[in-house]
Structure formats: C-alpha cells, structure tokens
C-alpha cells in the first residue's frame, strides 16, 4: 500500500477527507479490489487496536487467565518438586497394590472386558441451558439432569423424545453404554458421527469404538481406533494405545 492510498484509507476511516479526496476514494473503492481489501483490513485493525476500552478488557482477560492458569500451573509444579521422596515411596506402594489387584482382576475377564474396563470412562455431563421457553431445551435439560443423577433409563426416555437432536442422540448413546445396551449405543453414536461438524464427533467415535470392543468386534474396533489415531482427535493418543493393546489380544 503506497503512502497516498494509505492517507486516503486512514482519512476515510477518520472521516477527514475533503470532497476531492472522497471522490478519489470512492473511485478506487469501486474499481480496485486491492484498495478495497486494504481499506477493510485497516478498518478492522483500527477498531481492534485503537479502541482503548476493548484493549483494556483484553488486557484484563489476559491477566485473569495468567493468574488463574499460568500461575496456578507453576505453583503446582513447584509443589510437586518439593514433595519429599517418602511421598514417592508411598505412591509406588499404592501403584504396586493397584497393579496386583488389577492383574488378579483382569485375569478373571475376557480380552474385551479387560480393555473396555481399562479405557471406559463415563463422559461428563454439562447442563448448560435453563430456558423454560423451549420444548427441546426443557427435554434435553431434564435428560441431562437425569443422566447426571445416573438415572439412565429415565434419561433415555427423555432423549428419545428428540430423535433428530445430535446432542440427545449422543447422550442417549452414553446412557445406553451405562445400561450395557452397546448395540443400541452404536446406533446412537453412528447418528452423531454422520455429521462431521458437531461438537460430539470425537467423543462419539471413541465411545463407539469402546462399544465395538465390548461387542467383541475386534476388527471393526481396530479399524475405527486406527482412524481416530490418524486425526487430531482429543482421543488420538488413547486410540493409538488401544490399537496396540487390541493387536496383542
């Protein structure tokens, strides 16, 4: 952007152009795509950088974040380093006990049960809507509350009222897993996975994989976990590990 164009752009944004300059600006804006783009970018930049109040809010938010997370992480690290080796010994002892228990426990189970129990961890439920004005919201909210209270059958009854909702289908899959209805859970997760662009996609894939393990569909499970491991999914590391574990069994 040359200096004349820059002056025109800044002048227009600051409303300081005279009539001749305004005509020149209008002409360039109508006929020169680069000029138009420079103007749009500069306008956005000015509203982002030049607004003192917004910059103040930004600075406050950065400071809160640093206070809450960065400082907290550092403090946690220092505390960990300061722990004496008695703690480490105690941890090792506990690990040995858990290991012994786990070894004994796992030896009584089939390969699928072993892996399923190792990797399955129920998803957290976030009840995040509170409106009374919308039927879907009320039903979903109620279902999630029931799921949180571990009343899985009642939660399912609520979710089933919303057959086209991705959220309801996802949590229906979760509830079905808890009720040992793994085949049904797979159907629910498949519904979610069909739409790539939703927030439950990664979780639905992972839980579907665990259902396949439980159902002893080893080849399908390996294929799905392998697919997850190749993506940037939140579960990719776990997926790599479970693929290795599945191949050993």
């Amino acid at each position, binding site marked *: *952007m040359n*200096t004349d164009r*820059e002056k025109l752009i800044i002048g227009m944004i*600051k409303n300081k152009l005279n009539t001749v300059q305004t005509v020149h600006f209008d002409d360039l804006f109508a006929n020169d795509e680069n000029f138009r*783009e*420079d103007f749009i*970018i*500069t306008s*956005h*930049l*000015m509203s*982002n*950088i*030049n607004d*003192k*109040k*917004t910059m*103040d*809010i*930004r600075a*406050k*938010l*950065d400071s*809160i*974040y640093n206070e*809450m997370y960065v400082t907290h992480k550092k403090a946690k690290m220092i505390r960990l380093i300061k722990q004496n080796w008695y703690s480490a010994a105690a941890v090792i002892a506990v690990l040995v006990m858990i290991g012994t228990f786990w070894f004994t426990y796992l030896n009584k189970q089939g390969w699928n049960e072993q892996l399923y129990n190792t990797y399955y961890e129920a998803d*957290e439920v*976030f009840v*995040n*809507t*509170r*409106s009374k*004005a*919308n039927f*879907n*919201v009320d039903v*979903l909210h109620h279902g999630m509350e029931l799921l949180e209270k571990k009343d899985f059958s009642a939660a399912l009854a609520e979710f089933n009222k*919303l057959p086209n*909702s*991705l*959220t*309801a289908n996802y949590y229906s899959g979760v509830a079905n897993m808890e009720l040992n209805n793994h085949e049904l859970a797979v159907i629910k997760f498949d519904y979610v996975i069909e*739409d*790539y*662009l*939703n*927030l439950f*996609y*990664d*979780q639905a894939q992972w839980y579907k994989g665990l259902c396949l393990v439980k159902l002893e569909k080893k080849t399908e499970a390996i294929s799905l976990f392998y697919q997850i491991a190749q*993506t*940037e*999914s*939140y579960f990719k590391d776990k997926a790599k590990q479970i693929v290795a574990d599945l191949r050993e069994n």
Partner: protein
Amino acid sequence: MKKNKYNDEEIIEGLRQGNDNVLNFLYKNYYGVVRNMVLKSSGNEDQARDIFQEVIIVIYNKLQDSKFKITSSFFTFFYAVIKITWLNYRKLNMKNPLGYAKDYNDEIGSQVAADDIEILAAQAIRNNLFTTYFKQMTEGCQKILKFYLAEYKAEDIALELGLKSANYVRKRKSECLKLLIEKIRKDALYKELK
C-alpha cells in the same frame, strides 16, 4: 464488590462496564465449560482461551449499544455465541464442505436471536485473526501502529518512543502496516471470511 454469585442483570451490567469482579466471575465459572468443549473437539488450550476472550469482547462491545437486549439467560446467550464461534472456526480452518453449525437450535431454539449469534461469532473469529497477527509483530511495530492509529503525530511518536526522527516513524509505520496487512491478506482463514 467481589461476589461469588451474580444474577444475569448484574453480569450484563458488570460486563457492559468492564467490571473486574464480573470478568473474574465469568472466567472462573464459564471458562471450564468452554475449555472442555474445545479440547474435546480437537482444539487446544490457546484456541479455548482465544475463543473465550474474543466472545467476551464482542458481547462487551455489543452491550455498549443500549438498544441491544439479551432475551435469554446470559449463559444461554454466551454459550450459543461460543458454540457457533468454535464450530464456524473449525469449519473455516478445515475447509469442511459441510455447512455451518446447524444443531444449536436444539439447545437454544427461539430464545436467542440467531442473527445476533452469527454476527457476533463472525466478529469474534475476525477479531481473533487481527489480534493474533498484531501480537505477532515486533514490539516496536506494535507501539508505532498503536500511536499512529490513535492519531498521534509522527513527531510525538518519535519523542515518545525515543526514535530518531518523525520521518523514520512515518517510514516504519507504513512498513509495519503494509506487513501486517499482507500477513492478514495471505491468511487462509481471512480468505474464507471474506
């Protein structure tokens, strides 16, 4: 006064004024949900923080317009903007052939004006893009541009920043602005947002 709990009116008024205690409250109570959502859908900590902060800022800016009213609960509105911002951000980054987020009506339905949500979400993504590139510039460039855009004279900027001359400030300002615009222009996300 610092409180553990705020009602919707207090949150909206506090945010409108940029109140520190309300901003702290929002971070403490809402960030966890946002972080969890982003991390569980292939995002990272930085993206969670960026999305959270940009959405707070676009809502703050929107609240400066006294005609603007939030008709749902604040959290419903906030979470709807967060969700659409994140879904659209993912969509834009992945160049996914599927459409924009479409399932949020399940949860927010008619309580929230969908147009407002889409506009705020687009602003949040755009602001994040501009702020990210601005922050990537050298400290010198950032300072010159800030002063320049705040309509300081080149002579005053030179004096304030201890630079050798007003001409040098003018030259550096143009170089910095040009560089910043070029970087933004080349960004794939910007091209998608156009």
